[in-house]
């Protein structure tokens, strides 16, 4: 099995041309094995996590101040997620169905979906940088400490109980980090690759880079693509897991309940701010956090 396909160009150089497409199956099967393993682990071995007493105290103390619905994602964030998800699925379908034998004219659909993804990601970068709590999605020192505590306790070693999560669990933050890296790689290389096909935006110029540079660009684009096969599979799996469904519903409706907020999140690490709210319709007051 070749990780990278090489070829000899007219000038006698060995150049990479793309990834070995059997990596697609490695990615897909790897993701399936992971989620089967995870499901079995959660079903038979995972223990309930004991949280730090400070977290419990803070939760109890602030319970009365928490509204019935806590805003988690703004309308702009949810629309971005929806558009990005549609674009990503369109990109995966148009990229990989032809590789498994479903033949159709995929190139135009692919770059259109790529443009949609690019615009949505640019919007997200600005939106998250200036209108959202930018740092809330990045792993911090406390996440690392708590992860270490959880790991030690899972192994039966002595360690203080971890705290509840901030707005986003560590896994969520790490997933975002990986998706960001893969996404920017796919977008960056994809935009350059549009110079190789007919689009209304660019005049074709296959000689913009040398064969070697183009080759690595195709390899990176392919690696990001098959990476997304696994990432999207795992993401959908977690989105439909029973214990995570409240987060999925929050991505649709924009809010979580007071009970969910107090059960899963540390108000000290994800404090509720004062209104105004832009969360979904609610009979009671919804406060953004």
């Amino acid at each position: 099995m070749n990780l990278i396909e090489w070829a000899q160009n007219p000038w006698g150089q060995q150049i990479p041309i793309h990834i070995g497409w059997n990596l697609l199956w490695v990615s897909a099967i790897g993701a399936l094995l992971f989620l089967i393993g995870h499901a079995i682990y959660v079903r038979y071995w995972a223990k309930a996590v004991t949280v730090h007493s400070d977290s419990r105290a803070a939760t109890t103390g602030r319970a009365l101040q928490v509204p019935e619905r806590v805003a988690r994602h703004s309308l702009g964030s949810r629309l971005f997620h929806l558009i990005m998800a549609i674009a990503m699925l369109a990109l995966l379908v148009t990229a990989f169905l032809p590789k498994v034998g479903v033949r159709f004219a995929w190139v135009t659909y692919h770059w259109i979906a790529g443009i949609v993804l690019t615009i949505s990601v640019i919007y997200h970068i600005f939106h998250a940088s200036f209108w959202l709590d930018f740092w809330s999605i990045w792993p911090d020192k406390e996440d690392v400490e708590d992860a270490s505590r959880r790991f030690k306790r899972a192994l039966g070693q002595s360690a203080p109980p971890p705290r509840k999560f901030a707005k986003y669990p560590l896994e969520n933050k790490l997933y975002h980090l990986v998706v960001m890296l893969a996404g920017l790689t796919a977008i960056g290389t994809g935009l350059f690759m549009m110079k190789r096909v007919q689009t209304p935006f660019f005049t074709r110029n296959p000689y913009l880079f040398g064969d070697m540079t183009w080759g690595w660009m195709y390899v990176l684009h392919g690696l990001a693509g098959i990476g997304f096969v696994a990432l999207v599979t795992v993401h959908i799996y977690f989105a439909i897991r029973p214990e995570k469904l409240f987060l999925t519903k929050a991505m649709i409706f924009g809010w979580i309940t007071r009970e969910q907020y107090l059960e899963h999140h540390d108000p000290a690490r994800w404090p509720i701010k004062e209104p105004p709210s832009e969360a979904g319709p609610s009979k009671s007051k919804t406060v953004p956090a």
Partner: protein
Amino acid sequence: MAVIHDVIPAFELFQPTTVDDALALQSRHGAKAWVLAGGLDSFDWFKDRIKRPEVVIDLSQIKELRGIRAVGDGLEIGAMTTLTEVVRHPMVREKYSILPNAAEAAASPQIRNQGTIGGNVSQDARCWYYRGGWPCYRAGGNICYADTPTGLNREHAILDADRCVAVNPSDTAPALIALDAKMVIRTPKGERVVNAEDYFIGPAIDITRMTILQPGDLLTTIRIPSTWAGSQFYFEKARDRSVWDFALVNVAAAVVTSGNAIERIRLVVNGVAAHPVRLTAVEAAVQGKPRNAETAELAGQLAVRGAQPLQYNGYKVPLMRNLVKRAIRGVAGGEAA
């Protein structure tokens, strides 16, 4: 360009005598197997060392794939029937004269004696970058060497290019589409019959293939219905050398007239895209119109709408326009009438 060697690399040769055996061999050897018809396309690949199959399945011993038979109200032509046999067959000449005219325009007498109609319609692209073994899109790479500012693309596509700009080189393909032929394909799952028009695919659908044939599939028969039997036919092939060359552009038309008006028409060009192009918009536009210079002018203009010439093949636009005009008028230059 590739170096031509005298001796081709070794391979294991199978010569099945039935279609079932050929299909079984294809299933057993999968992508390692190469199906050999007349060998005119295949041996170029082998001698150039570009394709190095481990197994070659030679179809020449399968009698059921040879010959021309009258069936129902039409004809069946075995895929291994030689082009010369197609050219000489009296019934084909009488009712479907466009096909022998197209077949006779292919290559040289020696090649037509060996080349088959199945091979002619299924042959690979003749783009020299691709045939030279460079890692172009069609060869599984990520570039079209012909479609670059310095690429030699005089013979390449002006229509339907999608990354790859190679053209379909077949002469019989447009004639078969004009006759509304059906391609009978045996696959591991059974028999499929597809319109000749749908047998050919462009790079947008599959950039590494020119037909819908997948590994394990076998074109066995070409059926020609009587729909266009005895129509007025027109075939013309423009090429650099009249004695032996691939088409720069060729055109095939089957026309049924009522008085001087065009009642029905099928019009196909090849050499302008990676697949033969049926000009359905032109067909619709000229239907019911008189077969004269004015209609021909309209057809010619409409035919080349959307053409996108490359650096060196701009001449193909007026060439295609004029061939379409002549096909509509049914005069001059044509190798049939």
